[in-house]
């Protein structure tokens, strides 16, 4: 039980309460000492969470060795004795436990109703590395890490304006995870910020270990397989969405930050679309859109055409397919399900396998199994090709959360294709479209700007228009601040000397 009562004047009483709070916590250390050999004090900290060397040098040494006058209070100590910048007064037991839990040692002094917490928290930090889930050829190489303060720093370094605001809340009854909402004042809609805050405040859970916990609590449509909140570990992507008026939710302990609102097309964007020139960006986007359909539909279309619409295949192609299928004991649908299933299994296994042999095994496994299955006459060679192309296509989707949705949706569509042919596939697609039209992410229609059509935003979704022509921010930014940049910045060759 954490007492909310304020500290008492009597140190011994305080110690008693704190010792009962920290009963059976062998890692919490109570270090008794006296200031100037006279006044009793105590230092409370958790072993290993604080930098004790600094503590000894800057706190204990000056306090213990100092001659002290009769008149003395916390303020004087802070002003004259502690040469530490990060100090904080604490006055309740809740404050004390909070500070101690987050690694800041707390000093309590007899006859004082306030204590001091010293900011010598030492956390185990990973160094900043290139994010593994979203790598780019051109673009910044830094990625978020597990430490919240570092992540905020990374963003502050990209957006230095004072309009970048952070609001902090704690979620998790036991984990007491720090969650920070970040947005740019004047770009993000106030209603949106309020909505995000409300939804976060509603969460009552034991612990938050990853931002995924939060995501499931604040989604608009909990049963939908589509990701309605974008997650990324790239500071540049996060900064870009801040600049578009989105709200970012950072969670302590995970490199993945959440971005809301999210539309479907932003799941299909890669950071690089904006770095490599607009012609390249547009081309890559179209390629991605095309292969999105391939990843979703290719096995189903193959099954449908081969079992229902054989006349669609050019004669000579059908003959070679027929030849390779002649000895296959399974119907095309079963063959496709088998192969897709084992491909997904291989992929999953590849992630679980130890890093250094994982990739080798998954590729070799796929090749060997595919080759052996074909020569054993269990699956046909065209099917192996179809599965391979589908696999490659699903890797083209930049966001893992979107890619996995498509991988899952592939299976029901395959069943539909096996029972109703192309009609079934169309019904499947229509269902997906209707579902996507129903979804909203924090009030923003999921398929925006395609449905409902927003002409100004089509420029940055169907194609990637050059930067100088993207004059307007997305419409969900607050109404009074729509214009991103002034007209007339299109570069042209200088006349030079004639």
């Amino acid at each position, binding site marked *: 039980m954490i007492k909310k009562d304020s500290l008492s004047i009597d140190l011994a009483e305080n110690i008693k309460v704190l010792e009962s709070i920290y009963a059976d916590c062998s890692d919490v250390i109570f270090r008794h000492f006296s200031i100037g050999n006279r006044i009793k004090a105590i230092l409370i900290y958790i072993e290993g969470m604080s930098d004790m060397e600094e503590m000894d040098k800057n706190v204990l040494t000056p306090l213990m060795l100092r001659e002290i006058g009769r008149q003395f209070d916390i303020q004087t100590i802070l002003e004259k004795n502690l040469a530490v910048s990060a100090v904080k007064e604490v006055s309740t037991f809740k404050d004390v436990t909070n500070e101690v839990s987050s690694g800041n040692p707390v000093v309590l002094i007899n006859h004082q109703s306030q204590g001091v917490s010293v900011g010598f928290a030492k956390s185990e930090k990973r160094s900043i590395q290139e994010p593994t889930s979203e790598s780019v050829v051109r673009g910044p190489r830094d990625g978020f890490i597990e430490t919240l303060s570092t992540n905020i720093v990374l963003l502050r370094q990209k957006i230095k304006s004072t309009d970048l605001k952070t609001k902090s809340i704690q979620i998790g009854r036991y984990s007491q995870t720090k969650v920070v909402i970040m947005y740019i004042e004047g770009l993000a809609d106030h209603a949106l910020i309020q909505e995000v805050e409300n939804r976060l405040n509603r969460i009552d859970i034991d612990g938050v270990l990853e931002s995924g916990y939060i995501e499931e609590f604040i989604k608009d449509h909990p049963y939908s397989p589509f990701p309605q909140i974008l997650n990324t570990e790239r500071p540049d992507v996060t900064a870009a969405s801040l600049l578009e008026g989105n709200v970012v939710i950072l969670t302590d302990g995970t490199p993945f930050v959440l971005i809301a609102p999210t539309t479907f097309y932003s799941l299909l964007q890669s950071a690089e679309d904006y770095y490599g020139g607009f012609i390249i960006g547009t081309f890559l986007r179209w390629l991605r859109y095309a292969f999105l359909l391939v990843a979703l539909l290719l096995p189903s279309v193959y099954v449908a*055409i081969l079992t*229902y*619409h054989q*006349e*669609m295949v*050019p004669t000579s192609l059908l003959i070679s397919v027929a030849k390779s299928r002649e000895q296959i004991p399974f119907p095309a649908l079963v063959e496709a399900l088998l192969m897709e299933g084992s491909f997904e299994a291989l992929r999953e296994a590849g992630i679980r396998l130890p890093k250094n042999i994982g990739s080798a095994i998954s590729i070799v496994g796929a090749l060997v199994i595919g080759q052996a299955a074909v020569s054993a006459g269990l699956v046909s060679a065209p099917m192996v090709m179809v599965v391979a192309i589908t696999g490659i296509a699903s890797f083209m989707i930049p966001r893992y959360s979107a890619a996995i949705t498509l991988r899952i949706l592939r299976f029901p569509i395959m069943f539909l294709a096996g029972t*109703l*042919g*192309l*009609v*079934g*596939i*169309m*019904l499947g*697609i*229509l*269902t997906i*479209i*209707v*579902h996507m*039209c*129903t979804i909203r992410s924090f009030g923003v*229609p999921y*398929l925006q700007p*395609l*449905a*409902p*059509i927003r002409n100004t935003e089509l420029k940055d979704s169907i194609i990637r228009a050059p930067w100088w022509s993207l004059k307007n921010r997305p419409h969900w930014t607050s109404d009074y601040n729509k214009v991103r940049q002034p007209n007339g910045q299109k570069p042209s060759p200088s006349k030079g000397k004639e």
Partner: protein
Amino acid sequence: MLERGKISPVQMALFMNPAISATALLLVPSITAKHAHQDLWLSPIWASFIGYFIVFVSYQLNKLFPNQTIIEYSQQIVGKFFGKIIGVILLLFYLHITGVIVREYGEFVSGASLFHTPMAVIIGTMVLVCSLAVRGGIEVIGRAGEIIVPVVLLLYVIIFILLIKDLEIKNMFPIMEKGITPSLMGSVSPQSWFSEFILISFLLPYVTDRKRGMKWGMISVFSVTVLLVLTNIMDLLLFGNMTASLTYPVMVAARYISIADFLEHLESIVMAIWISGTFIKITVFYYAITLGTAQLLKLSDFRPLILPIGFLILLFGLWSSNNLEELSLFLGTSGAIYILSIQIIIPVFLLLTGFIRNKVQQGKGNNENEAPVNH
């Protein structure tokens, strides 16, 4: 209000196009060709006048009762009892017509590819998918239209382009060999399709900008006309006099495409395109029935009605005819008159009565509370 969503006039125009043309593209060329022969491309143009007229009528009615659908204001115009009767007639009519539409869909799919699949499965799956869209309300229908319609139109144009090398202009001549009569005769059946534009009287209360609603309604009629004329010309130039003897000329036309020995047999693609068009058509009709029924019964939510009405549509689809020939005959002859009379007479009657009542009331200069009440 039963429906809280709003759509833009453009969204309405977009999904009204397949809501009229989807089934028309398939059946109209051969039905009109039976009467109009090589003038079949003129028939949709004559027929489109009905479309413009109907859009005008429903816009005028909407102006009198801005926030109400036809089911609601018919009770305002001719009184509670007769208004309810008109409502019941309209809803039963639409239930029947939607049954006919899903049957057309079922006949086409089973005749073109799924020969042995039971009709109940073909129709049932489609109605189920449509019910999902109806559940989402008018906003979802509007957005789905924005996604589907441009793709459908684009693919349709591509098919037309792929056929250009096989078209023969000489099939068009002589134009108006026997005067204008054959093409007018041929326009009766497309007229029944164009009269379906009365559906926008269910939608106009939910359109954000009514003035532009009328304009875009007209544009929608025009786009359907262009689409039908193009289709008819394509079939005429490709098949000449044979068009009348083909059941689904567009389908056969797609099958006739052959580019570089590889792009062949695209009829399944046509089917796929067409299914998404029909999906919109059925959804719009289905939505109108559900919304109308809820308004007639004064329910607070239309969603509980979706599945029961879907089931009724399925049954009407199964019972509406025994086979394709019967269906085609119905749409070419008595059905056309039946559809036309209900969809034209009722709104025109309502408009005239409403207009006169309004005049009379204004003359008396009283009874302001008779003005439409928002439900």
